[in-house]
């Protein structure tokens, strides 16, 4: 059976999570996953997708947008989306 425990995903860096997610999507699309493991692997893919989305949200919250004056010159920064 595929790895059923998703506890490792909670600490996974973005690059590793997206890499494994892409690999799972490819295997599912190609029909290369055995029937018995198919649902387990899909559920791991869902957990990886949630991890990637969480990390993206955290990254977005740290990004600040550059504010410009009337002449288009940078004047400073402000939080993205007011967060």
């Amino acid at each position, binding site marked *: 059976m595929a790895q059923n425990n998703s506890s490792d995903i909670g600490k996974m860096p973005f690059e590793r999570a997206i890499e494994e997610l892409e690999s799972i999507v490819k295997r*599912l699309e190609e029909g290369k996953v055995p*029937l*018995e*493991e*198919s*649902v387990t692997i*899909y559920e791991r893919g869902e957990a990886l997708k949630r991890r990637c989305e969480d990390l993206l949200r955290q990254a977005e919250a740290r990004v600040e947008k550059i504010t410009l004056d009337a002449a288009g010159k940078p004047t400073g920064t402000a939080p993205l989306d007011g967060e």
Partner: protein
Amino acid sequence: MSTLLITHPACLEHLTPPGHPERPDRLRAVESALEAEKFQMLARVEAPRAPFEVIALCHPMDYIEALRDATPNEGIVQLDADTSMSPGSFEASLRAAGGAIHAVDEVLSKRAANAFVATRPPGHHAETARPMGFCFFDNAAIAARYAQNKHGIARAAIVDFDVHHGNGSQEIFWSDKTVMYCSTHQMPLFPGTGAVGESGDYNTVVNAPLRPGDGPEKFRDAIESRILPRLAEFKPELIVISAGFDAHMRDPLANINLEEEDFAWATQKIMDIADACAGGRIVSLLEGGYDLQALGNSTAAHVAALMRG
């Protein structure tokens, strides 16, 4: 005329490795559920062996013989990650296909109103020359082709509500405009086929995939808006149901949330089409369903509907 129930004890002798979901207890659960009082009116008969030449309507003779020759004298041999053979597997496969053939004979000769075939191994993943996903011979495909060859049916339809897509049935009838294949199934999931765009060379393949987590509303909408209109337009003279019950919410191999009454509802809707264009003729074959309680209850609901109960 009554509903006919076809099974055979040899189907309990197809053994799979310990912990495998497609196990003999599945059939015991189905048989136990159909022992209830309300099923006493069922006509019951044992499945004959399918002759090789009838299986060969869908699978090459050398494939059939290779499977026979792969049967072990003891233990279990793996054919792929999912699919394995024990000493009793080939005999069980012949009885499963034979049950489907016998059901066609009985229903088309008007000795039974319709029939449910409770056998295993299942069939809809078996491709022309490839065992796959617990399946060896595509029993539904054999039933449809046999109805055409033996009984002169011009158009047959297969309706497959197993939660997995019937890649085998789709492949076998991809270029055959006389057999329509319709399926609801979860995507993404094994075997990876079954997208809406897969429609066959003559637009007679109808796929209505569901998303993981979907429940009765999406399932009923897929049946009513995608499948029933195409069936009604095709006007089959016989409908074969690939009756898998693994879209039940309790099933461990998928994420669709149906309950027993949804299978009864789908059965009734298919019967309405059969009544309108096929003289009510339905042959229903057990496919998947891996939670024993859900399988027993869902099969009972399906068969009760077939009995017009």
